[in-house]
């Protein structure tokens, strides 16, 4: 697989190659502070994996980066552009970021091909034939060309999730956000999705992903970040964080994962 160049949208990446940077991001829901001054920078071609207990704010962070949630404080920059500036058009920002959800969220009334070509046609104004050709190229790469005319409910969970990833990829995003993309899948279907993510890594796609699959985190992560109390408590290479955690809470979390048989 090879990643297409982004279509020249947005300002050029800053010289240091930082694609995403979050500084002091805060987000609260009611009385719970989910993100409490969160800092993170993701370099170009880097794969950063977020781990942490359920409810530690991984999804919230990804939704804030994609501007689906408004931050309460702090700033987020994409390719050096301040995207949490209220004057910015969020639609233009989202066109440069792909987001894949735990529950796929394919559009049930559209065929696989129409799901994949909706944004290219309606947002990027690419004519149907060109959009479909591009979509078919991607679908063939992930072995789903024969499902192009099917509706999502006829596909297995793993196939649906791969379509969801393709749907995000045809927009040539600068950054791909993956939120526990295997959590809703039967164990035997997890592999096909993880293989696809690994292929994307070797293409050089910049990714920020949340996962409960520690084995997978080990394979793809350049950096693993453990979230606790709305911040990164510990981060480093997979070997450091997963193999030799320094913080008691990280150890506790990994222990529980080991006990539940997911490491």
């Amino acid at each position, binding site marked *: 697989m090879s990643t297409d160049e982004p279509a020249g949208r947005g300002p050029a990446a800053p010289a240091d190659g930082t694609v995403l940077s979050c500084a002091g991001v805060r987000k609260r829901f009611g009385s719970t502070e989910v993100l409490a001054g969160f800092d993170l920078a993701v370099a170009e071609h880097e794969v950063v994996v977020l781990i942490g207990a359920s409810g530690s704010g991984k999804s919230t962070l990804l*939704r804030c980066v*994609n501007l*689906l949630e408004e931050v309460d404080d702090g700033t987020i920059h994409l390719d050096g552009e301040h995207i949490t500036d209220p004057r910015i058009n969020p*639609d*233009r920002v*989202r*066109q440069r*970021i*792909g*987001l894949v*959800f735990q*529950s796929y*969220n*394919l*559009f*049930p*009334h559209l065929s696989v091909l129409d799901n994949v070509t*909706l*944004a290219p046609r*309606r*947002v990027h104004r690419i004519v149907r034939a060109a959009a479909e050709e591009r979509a078919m190229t991607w679908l063939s790469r992930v072995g789903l060309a024969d499902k192009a005319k099917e509706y999502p*409910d006829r596909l297995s969970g793993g196939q649906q999730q791969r379509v969801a990833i393709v*749907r*995000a990829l045809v*927009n040539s995003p600068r950054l791909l956000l993956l939120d526990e993309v295997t959590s809703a899948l039967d164990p035997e279907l997890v592999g096909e999705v993880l293989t696809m993510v690994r292929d994307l890594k070797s293409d050089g796609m910049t990714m920020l992903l949340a996962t409960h699959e520690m084995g997978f985190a080990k394979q793809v992560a350049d950096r693993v970040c453990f979230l606790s109390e709305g911040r990164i408590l510990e981060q480093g290479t997979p070997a450091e964080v997963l193999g030799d955690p320094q913080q008691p809470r990280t150890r506790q979390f990994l222990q529980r994962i080991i006990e539940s048989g997911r490491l």
Partner: protein
Amino acid sequence: MTGTAAAPAPSEVQRGRLAYRRRQTVKSVLVAAGSTVALGLILTVAITGAPGFDRVRESFFDPKVAAETLPDILVGLWLNIRLLVCCTIGALILGLLIAVLRTLRGPVFFPFRALAIGYTYSFRGAPLIIVLYVLTLGVPGLRLAGTPSVVVLGGIALVITYGAYMAEVFRAGIESVHPSQRAAARSLGLSYRQSMRFVVLPQAVRRVTPPLLNDVVSMQKDVGLISLAGPIDAIRAAQIGVAEHYNFTPYIVAGALFVLMAIPLIAVTDWVTLRSARRQSADGAA
């Protein structure tokens, strides 16, 4: 997938099962036929044997009167049909517009939202007959230049009354689409309007087609109320026939025509409802 290979011959047990089921089918057809004939006989005897049956037959089922009034009633019915088609389209468009207005967020849209809410609250509560009288009798009373005809005013009354019901149906449909669908659309860079148009509304409309068709069926009957304001539709034509012949047969003729007109609509409604119920149970199973 199945059936591509030649199926193996059924086993002894399966052949027995099939034969049993065939016998059961024959039996139930016979029972159904028998009970239908019996009930028909009882009803016929009870009705034709009633002491006033001959008088009723003369004043409600006189073929001569039916034949004489049918042409006028049909002319009237043509007006009902045209009204139904126009009012259905009008009410659907108005309902959809109001439903979408109610979903808009942001201070700019506050007056639109308030208007939409006020409209649905008032017109779901107001009896159609009152709205009809106010529009067809009240508005011409203003003697404004360019006041539309009574038929158009009556049509407007139907559209705004049914538009309020349909707006609520559409709104329920829009709200039934899971927020994650909108999030998925927005995450792809679609604007609010594009998400609504390409993702939310198509799903919402599919879900509410059965209740909407029910509203159309009920509007089909209410179109006849326009006769109260004077235009000669099927019911008004029947009324004139009744007065001319001192006989109620024209009402029966008009009633039968309304039922005939409704049958295809009701059949379509039932079919669509069944299909969408099947689809939803398939969704649930997936």
